[in-house]
Every structure is written in structure tokens, then in C-alpha cells.
């Protein structure tokens, strides 16, 4: 049986970590980052590798906000809803993104390019309202700025 690209990626990740239970979260984090979600198969293989029961891997995967059992977009937009961003109407960004990308929070766009979610405080409060796309932070956002940024990513 030939291995798919996803399987190979998973193999590479699993090999990097020590097969101990406390590697669980770190492995899941890398799988989430590289494969954009935790599939049933991935969860099983991670659990096996770090020697924990599948139920523990599942409970960890569903407890932490960082993990998702459904695919996320290639570009993950994290809109900050910390206190400062809340006071600067960060919620408005969520609404704007919904109409801009024609999808709901947590549901990837049809082309799989984007998904957006709310996070609690990116720690850039003086730039409120702020958001992060795949680790890159954007601040002092307005509807116009948001449109421009999305356009840039679409063109990438």
C-alpha cells in the first residue's frame, strides 16, 4: 500500500517526538499546524506513538481551543477579542469577515483558503482591534484595512 502525502507528513512529525505521554500536546500541536486539523486517523496514530489511550488524546484534542477535529483553512485568521479589542469593537471585525469571506466562524471558505476564529487577547492591546493570520499580527484594524489584507492573502 502506498502512503499518501498526509501519511508521510504525519510520519515525519511523529518521529520527532519522544514516545512519552507528556509529548502528547506538543505532537498534536504540530499535527494541527502542518495538517490544519486532527483527523481520526491522526489522533489514533498520535495516541499510539506517545503511548496514551485514544480517549486521552481525544479529550485533550477537544479540551484545548488550539485543536480542531475539522479542517481549518490554509490561512487561519484569529480575531482578538481581548478586553481592549472588545472595547474597540473587535466584534465588528468578526461580522465583517463573515460577509467578506462568505462563511461562518470556524467554517473554512469553499476554496479552503481561509477560516476565522475568535481568540482571547493576542497581547497587542495598544493596537486594538487586532488579529493574527498564521502568526503574523495586524493592528489598528478598520473595515477597509481588513479588506486590503484579505485581498493580499488571496493574491498570494
Amino acid at each position, binding site marked *: 500500500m502506498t502512503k499518501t502525502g498526509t501519511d508521510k507528513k504525519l510520519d515525519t512529525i511523529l518521529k520527532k517526538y519522544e514516545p512519552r505521554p507528556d509529548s502528547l500536546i506538543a505532537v498534536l500541536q504540530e499535527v494541527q499546524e502542518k495538517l490544519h486539523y486532527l483527523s481520526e486517523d491522526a489522533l489514533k496514530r498520535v495516541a499510539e506513538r506517545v503511548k496514551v489511550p485514544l480517549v486521552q488524546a481525544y479529550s485533550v484534542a477537544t479540551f*484545548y481551543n488550539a485543536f480542531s477535529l475539522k479542517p481549518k483553512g490554509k490561512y487561519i485568521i484569529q480575531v482578538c477579542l481581548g478586553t481592549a479589542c472588545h472595547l474597540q469593537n473587535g466584534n465588528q471585525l468578526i461580522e465583517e469577515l463573515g460577509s467578506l469571506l462568505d462563511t461562518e466562524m470556524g467554517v473554512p471558505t469553499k476554496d479552503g483558503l481561509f477560516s476565522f476564529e475568535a481568540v482571547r*487577547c493576542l497581547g497587542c492591546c495598544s493596537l486594538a482591534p487586532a488579529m493574527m493570520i498564521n502568526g503574523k499580527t495586524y493592528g489598528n484594524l478598520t473595515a477597509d484595512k481588513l479588506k486590503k489584507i484579505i485581498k493580499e492573502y488571496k493574491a498570494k
Partner: protein
Amino acid sequence: MDKIIKKKDLDAFKEKGNRLLFADSVKIAVQAGTCGIASGAQEIFDFLSGQVSSGKFVLSRTGCIGLCKREPMVNVSVPGSVTVVYADMTKKLTEELLKSWIKGETPVKNSLMTLDDALYANPLKDLKLPSGHAKYRDIPFYKKQEKIALRNSGFINPHNLSEYIARGGFYTLFDVLNGQDSDKIIDEIETSGLRGRGGGGFPTGRKWRSCRNAKGDKKYVICNADEGDPGAYMDRTVLEGDPFSVIEGLAIGGYAIGANEGYVYVRAEYPLAVETLKQAIETARNHGLLGKNIFGTDFSFDIRINRGGGAFVCGESTALMASIEGNVGEPRTKHIHTVESGLWEKPTTLNNVETWANVPAVVNMGGSEFRKIGTKGSAGTKVFSVVGDIVNSGLVEVPMGMTLKELVFGVGGGIPGNRKLKAVQSGGPSGGCIPADKADIPIDFDELVKVGSMMGSGGLIIMDEDTCMVDVARYFLSFLVDESCGKCTPCREGTYQLKQILDRITRGEGKPGDLELIEEIAQVTKDCSLCALGKSAPNPILSTLTYFRDEYKAHIEKKKCPAGVCKALITYTIIPEACTACGKCLKSCPASAIEGGKKVAHRIIPEKCTKCGICFDVCAFDAVKKV
């Protein structure tokens, strides 16, 4: 790689570091913390990288010096002169100013200040003060700051070990490992009166002592960098600007309590902090400052990084330890303290980033010196992130005991647009809102508790009169409903029910008796929850109820939101006489809820209006009214 074993090795690094910090050539250091980068620092850095091959200047990067509002900032030093900090920079301005800088000139355009304070002095020779620039202490924002935890941030290159050593770094660890009794170090920390900077304010020395005395073949030290309080980012800044101080602090703590392993549990939302720390640990390891037999002594110590999974509750010590072990981050009861049975049931000392960054400084200056700073019950300084409706939003480090008023109006520069201060929210979701008329209180751990709030990790959200306190309470409650781990019922159900009631009130569906019901549920949640998350969850609602009860009543009885925030209780209308029919609001309305035409006064169609407020914001003629 050169190992650092003897004092002369440290001295060699120090010399090298000083040469880098106070270069013989023109030196440009871009302040490139996360907030700096988001404001455009990377673009400036990239531009300068392209120019550096000219050989006319050296390029470096540094962390954030605190005044986030004025970023991106660039530190420029020309030979023989004190460093000048330029603010509000752009690539274009950099391009323009670079022409002068490389000639050894420091124009005043966009200059914020010089770093002429003793804190940044060149230990080898006096530098001359370039003329025309504001001095460090002339700037109200910096005038009363005392930097201990932030001593290096915004000045040194966080990736450069020798610059950290040039600032006295790792000398303290050297002295500690060469001849100091671990009890003596704990004595110093106890004498200093240092209290945990993460929120609880527990005496650090006492914690260390208990852990040192606890029985166990293996012990751990942990740095809590899961800075979850929204509005607080001091730990991110320390990790991004001065990671070696945390490493040195952890090593000193490890030696004092008898631990050989340390963990840093850091939020995944801080990718740059994780990366900076990772590199710093690697560098320290390569030079023998972490690993086996540090400085040739018997003491071995190493640090691992664990990234969080985006769960606020993991800032709680027992939940954090569960998470390091690879489990769900649920807290446990603390009838056995973590100093006796913590990580993997071994004695564990957990402190947060700011506390660990304080440790080398405290040991170096001596406990009694540190004690002289601050108030009787709260020694030392505290870093605050002052954000929200404030002119100088940013990170400040002030002596404990400064009044809230001075922090907001002196250091912070007051409220923008001459609006009035309404309240200051401190302590994150576990804290409370302090009303403007209580702004005279000195900030320390105990005083904040007295007014129904708490220090927390130091996030201060400044709120002006346009803030609805019911909405603020609802915001924190919804945060806690999401972040409650669900293990204990009082927290899981209590926060949920409180939020349901607040949702109703802000929708205009409040009923008589709601406030009493809130107080009853809040009390039960407070009394019966398992961990501090639940026990403190009602604070935002209780403190706003105490100080802003009338505002709640207006929502319930009059169905009005006095601050004009709660969408269900406000309507937008256009005053035809004031409308110039410019069409701006019509074009901006995302819901197509505005009608009108050329020379025809515009009108909002109530059925379509989503109350987003964009028309209100864009109207240049004050024709849109919010009622």
C-alpha cells in the same frame, strides 16, 4: 562554541557585549517586538538590512521599550553619543533620516528622547548628550518609571548573550553557584518581600522555602508564561525583549530549591516570544549556562518549553502542571500544595515570567535594597500594561504605591479627546472595575483587593465615559463561560447563569429581582468553586454592581443603555436638518440600511439597521445621532 566557566569568561563576554551595545560606529537597533512588527518595524528592519552592506552602520534589533502607542521605534547611536529613540517611524522616514545618521548626525525629527538615564549608561565612558532632544526623564511617560523587570527590554538585543552579560547578566548566577548557600538566597528573596507577579501575590520566598523543605528526590521549577488575562502583555514583552533574565532567574530558583529541571509554559498565541525564548535557551546551553555542571560547579540545570493550547484555565498552577504532563488542563483541589506535590507529584515551584525576571535583580541588589522600593506590603515595582482609552497606551514599570490617578493621568497622559475617566479595570477576568472616584488609591496588592479588584498580572484597562459597565461585566462573564474548564459545577453553571441574566439585561429584557439573583448566584460561585478561576469569576460583575448599580437599573427599569453601547437598547437616526446628503454613510452602510439621494436628506431604515455604528463614525457633520 566558547563555554563560560570562569569569571574571566564572563568578563570576556561582557567586554564584547559592551562593544556591541556602545558601538564605535553608527548603530541602528529596530524595536521589533510583536507590537512593533505589527506597526511596521519589520518593514523598516528589512529596508535597513538591504542597506547594511554599505558598511556605514551596524544593524541590530531590540525588544519593546514600552511606549507601544508610538511604535515603530528605532534606537540610533552615533559614536560618542547617547542613544536617541525615534518614534512613529515609517520606512520612508527611515530612508530619509538614514542619510543623516550615517553622517553621525541625529536630527530631532521624530525623535522621542535620548536614553540618557543611569539605567542605560555606558559603564566605560561618558557619552555626550546630543542637543535638541528630549531627555528620558523629561517624558512624562518615563519620568516616574523604575525599571527592574524591564531593565533590558528595548535596549539590548534579546538574541545576544554578550549584551545581556554586559548588563550584569549571569554574574548573579555565577556568584550564587560559587559559594552561596541555597538557604541564603531564599533568605534574600524573603527579605526582599517579593510577591508573585502573576496575580495571587503570594510571597515568593515563602513558596521557595516550602518547596526547598519538601521531601522529594526530584523537584521542578516552572515559569508560568501562559499570560491569559486579556489586556496584559508584560510577560510577552519580557520574553521577547529579555529572555535571558528569565533563564537566569529560573536557574537561581532551581539552585535555591534543589531542582535540576525547569519548564516554561508559554501561550501559543505568542509565537515570537516562543521563538525568542527557544533561541535564548539554545544559546545558553551552547555556552554551558544551561546543562551539566554550570560554571564548573556540581549544579546542573536545564529548561524545556511547553506551548499552551489556548486554554485560559491553564494559567492556574495545578491546571498548568496537568497540561505539561500531557493531560486536559483541569485544576485540582490544593489541600496538598504544589510546593509539596506538583508536577508529576514532585515538589514544584511555579512563578510567572515577571517574578522570574525580578529574581536575578533582587539577588544582585540584595533583599533589603529591593524592600526599600514600593510599599510596606508590596515591595518593588510592578509592570502594568495600560491600555484602552488612554493617550500613552503601553507598558510601564512603576514602584508599588503609585496612585491609580498618577498612573492614568501622569504616566498614561490621561484620556484621549478630553473625555472623562469612568473606571479602571484591573486583574483581568478575575478582577474588578475601580470607579474614577476611587482613583486616589495607591496601587498595591492589598489596596486593590480592598476596593473589590485585584492586581492580577497587571493589565489595566482604562475606560472612558462611553463605556457601558454592564457590557463590560457581560464581556468578562462570557470570557469565563468559554474558559471555565467545566470540572466543578459552581463555576461551570454559575458563570453560565450569570451570563444568561446579563445577556437578558443588555437585550432590554431585565426583570425586577435580577440584581438580587445575580448577587446570590455570584456568592455561591465565589464560595464553592474549586479553583481561583471560579472563585474570582463574579468579581467583575460584583464590583460593577457595587459602583455602577444605577447603570444596571437604567438597563432593567428604563430599558436604556446610558453609555449607548448595548445594541438592543439604542437606535441610530439621521437628523435631516444636519444631513448634507453627502452620501458617505449610504456608501459605508454594510447592511444597505440607508436611503436617500443627491440633495435628499438620508434616512436609516430601522428594519434593516444592524446598529453597527459605521454611519455614526463616518459622518463628518454630526448628523447621525445615537439614542
